[in-house]
């Protein structure tokens, strides 16, 4: 087995696995952390995101502001290690700006955000057989593969992953998509430079795909359920719940009895909405590939939740408003449910919540029908039938409103003080910017960062001199390396693969896993793991078995020559009786007493038949 990690960003998985002559891609995450390097796409009072021309106007409106940004950025980031990367990116943006922005040298072309795909340049897409997706956070680069390469394999993801993956892609394109691309209809593979990268030396930074690409891509994904065994040639592949978000999976690949577990974003935090982490995926595993681990310990989830509750309550009591910059899925569902109860408990009744995102309605409504993918407690509610998601009750009681953007449709129901959940958490696009502008100059208002993905200070650095109170309470429910090793200790896997960046040195971890061979991997490594998957399980019929002549080798070991027919039905093999006995091959092995043979022969008349040799089985064996 070979493992080839392709993603630089630890939070965005992408692995190529070679196994039994099959090529499997696990996940294809899209690195969006560069968004922070760009000035915000300001959309106040216009539908800039809809029109290419407007985005240029907007850019001139806020040009003085962006000067602030760059100077302050320089100051902050002088000593940061990714400074070099940033300059490279700056250079890149300048060069693209020259070509299409028409605003002259040195001025960045506004409205075009770049993203980073995994390192795809070395992949021959023709030979990739399967893609398995662990959860919707790790699939956003999928349209590049399905729409712009000659990939012909099959893609598997759980039902909610398909649903929410599509929403996440849609949201991304709405917020950051290139307006030029948006108007483009679905394109033929290879017909555009979207996939070839923007420049030769930076071949992973790309512009975003289009809305049309998303649907076409999602249509190619086959939805599966947890515990559904997929029989794919010699492999049996199964998804198990990882407890991180709705439909989040860890995959177990079983090839001829050798088990490879792929552990992606997983969580053992109690009392959150997803179906809990299923340890079955680790049982009897020979190889465990760990990814998307949390790199630092943080406060307990419950503690942060209460802290968030208090901050919100205090702000509201001071007649302030609260803004949560977030994506409309995952842990935010728990936060909404918790806040609603918390506020009622502290006597703040009837405070309206607003979810503002292009996917808010879809996301809120779809999550409520995914009861089977939730923890037992919520399943029980579904059986009653009650809404398993508290936010659905809030919608029905007019306590929670959704809108796709901050425009007149929201205005009708809008009333302050309120709590707003709005994208994008990087504060570079989306309705969150509208609310920052609206509430920015009042220190009674708060902005609460709960997402751990984007650096909050950097996100806020684009907005200088605001009075609004920023509160950093990032929630990260992923497993830490210590939590994982505690679970793995009893499972005693042969091999454990851990991302290098997480633990730096394997010495730290080895004492905790004395029975396992530990390998650290880095992006673009090629890790070779020898696994002895030399056998495939099949069955033979009674008829065939009854015609086999077994020869005893001593110690109860038996051996026989087998002549049969190999049948394949639906990738399942079976052995039945041979149609022709003449194909049967016979062998002589072991010690061979030649003198005895000669003696026997001389006793026989000329023209002896071979059958008679077989009577002598004492010293050699005819099989």
């Amino acid at each position, binding site marked *: 087995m070979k493992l080839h990690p392709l993603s630089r960003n630890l939070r965005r998985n992408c692995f190529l696995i070679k196994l039994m002559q099959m090529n499997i891609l696990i996940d294809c995450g899209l690195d969006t952390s560069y968004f922070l390097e760009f000035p915000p796409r300001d959309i106040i009072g216009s539908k800039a995101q809809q029109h290419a021309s407007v985005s240029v106007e907007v850019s001139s409106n806020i040009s003085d502001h962006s000067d602030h940004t760059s100077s302050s950025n320089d100051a902050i980031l002088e000593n940061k290690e990714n400074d070099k990367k940033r300059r490279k990116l700056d250079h890149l943006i300048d060069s693209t700006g020259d070509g299409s922005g028409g605003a002259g040298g040195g001025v960045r072309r506004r409205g075009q955000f770049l993203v980073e795909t995994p390192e795809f340049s070395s992949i021959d897409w023709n030979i990739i057989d399967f893609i398995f997706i662990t959860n919707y956070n790790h699939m956003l680069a999928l349209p590049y593969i399905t729409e712009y390469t000659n990939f012909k394999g099959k893609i598997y993801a759980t039902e909610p992953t398909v649903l929410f993956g599509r929403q996440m892609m849609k949201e991304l394109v709405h917020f950051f998509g290139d307006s030029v691309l948006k108007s483009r209809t679905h394109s033929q593979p290879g017909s555009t430079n979207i996939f070839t990268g923007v420049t030769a030396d930076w071949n992973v930074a790309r512009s975003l795909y289009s809305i049309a690409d998303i649907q076409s891509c999602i249509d190619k994904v086959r939805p599966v359920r947890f*515990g559904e065994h997929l029989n794919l040639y010699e492999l049996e592949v199964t998804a198990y719940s990882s407890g991180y978000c709705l439909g989040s999976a860890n995959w177990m690949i079983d090839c001829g009895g050798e088990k490879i577990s792929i552990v992606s974003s997983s969580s053992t935090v109690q009392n959150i909405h997803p179906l809990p982490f299923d340890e079955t995926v680790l049982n009897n595993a020979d190889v465990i590939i760990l990814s998307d681990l949390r790199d630092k310990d943080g406060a307990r989830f419950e503690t942060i939740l209460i802290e968030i509750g208090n901050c919100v309550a205090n702000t509201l009591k001071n007649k302030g408003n609260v803004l949560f910059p977030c994506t409309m899925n995952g842990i935010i569902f728990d936060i909404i449910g918790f806040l609603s109860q918390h506020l009622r408990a502290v006597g703040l009744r009837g405070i309206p919540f607003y979810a503002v995102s292009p996917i808010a309605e*879809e996301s809120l409504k779809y999550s409520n029908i995914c009861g089977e993918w939730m923890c037992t407690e919520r399943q029980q509610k579904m059986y009653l*039938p009650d809404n398993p998601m508290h936010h659905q009750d809030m919608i029905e009681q007019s306590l929670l409103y959704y809108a796709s953007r901050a425009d007149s449709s929201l205005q009708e129901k809008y009333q302050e003080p309120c709590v707003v959940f709005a994208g994008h958490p990087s504060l570079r696009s989306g309705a969150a910017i509208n609310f920052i502008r609206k509430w920015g100059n009042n220190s009674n208002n708060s902005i609460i960062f709960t997402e751990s993905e984007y650096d909050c200070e950097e996100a806020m650095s684009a907005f200088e001199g605001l009075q609004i109170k920023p509160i950093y309470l990032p929630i990260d429910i992923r497993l830490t390396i210590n939590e994982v090793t505690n679970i793995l200790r009893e499972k005693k896997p042969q091999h454990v693969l851990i991302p290098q960046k997480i633990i730096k040195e394997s010495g730290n971890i080895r004492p905790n896993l004395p029975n396992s061979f530990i390998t650290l991997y880095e992006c673009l490594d090629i890790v070779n793991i020898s696994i002895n998957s030399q056998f495939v*399980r099949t069955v033979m019929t009674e008829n065939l078995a009854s015609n086999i002549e077994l020869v005893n080798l001593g110690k109860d070991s038996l051996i026989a020559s087998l002549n049969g027919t*190999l049948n394949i039905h*639906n990738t399942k093999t079976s052995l039945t009786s041979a149609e022709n006995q003449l194909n049967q091959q016979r062998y002589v*092995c072991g010690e061979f007493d030649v003198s005895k043979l000669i003696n026997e022969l001389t006793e026989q008349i000329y023209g002896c038949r*071979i059958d008679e040799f077989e009577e002598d089985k004492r010293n050699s064996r005819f099989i």
Partner: protein
Amino acid sequence: MIKIIPLGAGQDVGRSCILISIGDDSTGIKNLMFDCGMHMGYNDERRFPDFSYISKTNRFTEQLDCIIVSHFHLDHCGALPYFTEMCGYEGPIFMTHPTKAICPILLEDYRKITVERKGETNFFTSQMIKDCMKKVTAVNLHQTIKVNGDDDLEIKAFYAGHVLGAAMFYVRVGTQSVVYTGDYNMTPDRHLGAAWIDKVRPDLLITESTYATTIRDSKRTRERDFLKKVHDCVTQGGKVLIPVFALGRAQELCILIETYWERNNLNVPVYFSAGMTEKANDYYKLFINWTNEKIKNTFVQRNMFDFKHIKPWDRQYLDLPGPAVLFATPGMLHIGTSLEVFKKWAPYPENMVIMPGYCVAGTVGAKVLNGDKEIYIDAYNKINVKLQVKNLSFSAHADAKGILQLIKQCDPKNVMLVHGEKAKMEFLQEKIKRECRIPCYSPANGETTIIDTPLSIPVDVSVDLLKRHLTAQKLPLPTSDDKIDITKIKPVNGIPIQGILTMEPDQIPKLMDVNEAIRDTNLPLRELTFEFIKSFDPNKIDTSTRTDIRTQALENVYEKVRKALKDDVNEVEIIKNSSQIKIRSMLIRISDKNSNSFNISWNYKDENLANYVMSIIDNILPE
């Protein structure tokens, strides 16, 4: 061997309960119960299956490995609380999530009618229903469940379409397998998709056969028919009673009426009886993933189960004048609102009753369908039936075509018919035997059927060996004079395979290449070559031309052997030149000495082939 005893639904509709024993020496015998239903036609002890078949001493938990419930209809789950709480079965029970949610509602409803209205005692209580449901494990479609953690007993659910959450179950014990369909529908309807099962090739398919002899016209025609009848009746001022069960057909017909009313701008009131309608629709809203794709994809914009025209029924509407449409429960007119309203409306010829489903013999519904003009509800109460009676087959059962379609889809080795009327079953049974050429059974209740299953022995095949045989196999190439017949090109199946089988105690036999076997067993392989001088009588050689007699003899041998081998072993290559013939390791050449003889040699491994060729040579070259 598989043993089946129907405790209910054998040559009958109602009280579905089928026991099967399946397994062999290696897996042990597993006992399962498919469905645990009650009979609507009886009010005495015959309404429940006779569980004493399983154990005379009430030791059900020891005797049964699990119960599988296909869907929430009472004739499939009605006896469950009785069996678990009053008979004491404590083992596992499996059903889908929607079934688990809805089943207790229907059980409670049934209990209320039986105990509170009919005053029966010694019946299960509400608490018993709750306790019973706690023992149920909910399963997802396609999820493979290992019952009791047993590797040899696996179950897997497939979508059955019949009602919300209905499933077919595939059960595998070792290498034997059974599919139980429950009730299913092979054509999608307004709210559910069509049943689907993989080609699982079970040893036995147990299928329902409610509509064994019917082939229904298209759904569209039936819908139009239904709407026309309703519309005609209400325009003439009549009242339409449609007896339905609260969940299932009711929703389909409501969607139908709702859209028709909307399209035609009708304002005749439509009512739905039973307090649980609201609740029923809530279930549909939460389990939207189990309805059809269209409803699922549009539910964010418009939930199909939010009805605008259909209002809840109130008893005081009973005497209101003017036209109305009423959906009333239960569907067989045996009790409840539907019977109450029927009594009131039956004497007037302008009214109409539409029976959209199947009625169990003995119920008022069955009598109405039978055309009875005077119906006794009990000893004292008689109804004069003057209203119009229409029967429209909206039951979501597969018709004869659908049943045959399912048989083809899953490709079983045996079929058993249950859940149907005896005479109809016999007809279908013959049809299946004739058209599918597989044995078909239709046992009565309590009758044991034994089906022999071929024993299959698991074998581990070396991947190398498998690959070599798979790649060596080529599609037959058309010869120059043949035209390529596309219809005859199909995947290669039945590939001849040779290898060495090794068996160690307590291990699965391994099949491998001879070289792998030699390496593993440490037995050196011996080459054993046989050489034989075959002389023949030149006078007996048939020569037409004046060629060398030996060359002619060789030519004769070549022709005969080639012909024989072409017939018998098509993949053996025969090479001939002027003085010799080569068949695998076998060499037939003209002797060097000037005698009339051949030198024939071969390796022991081709012993079988050599023997065969020798017998041909002996025949054509007499000494």
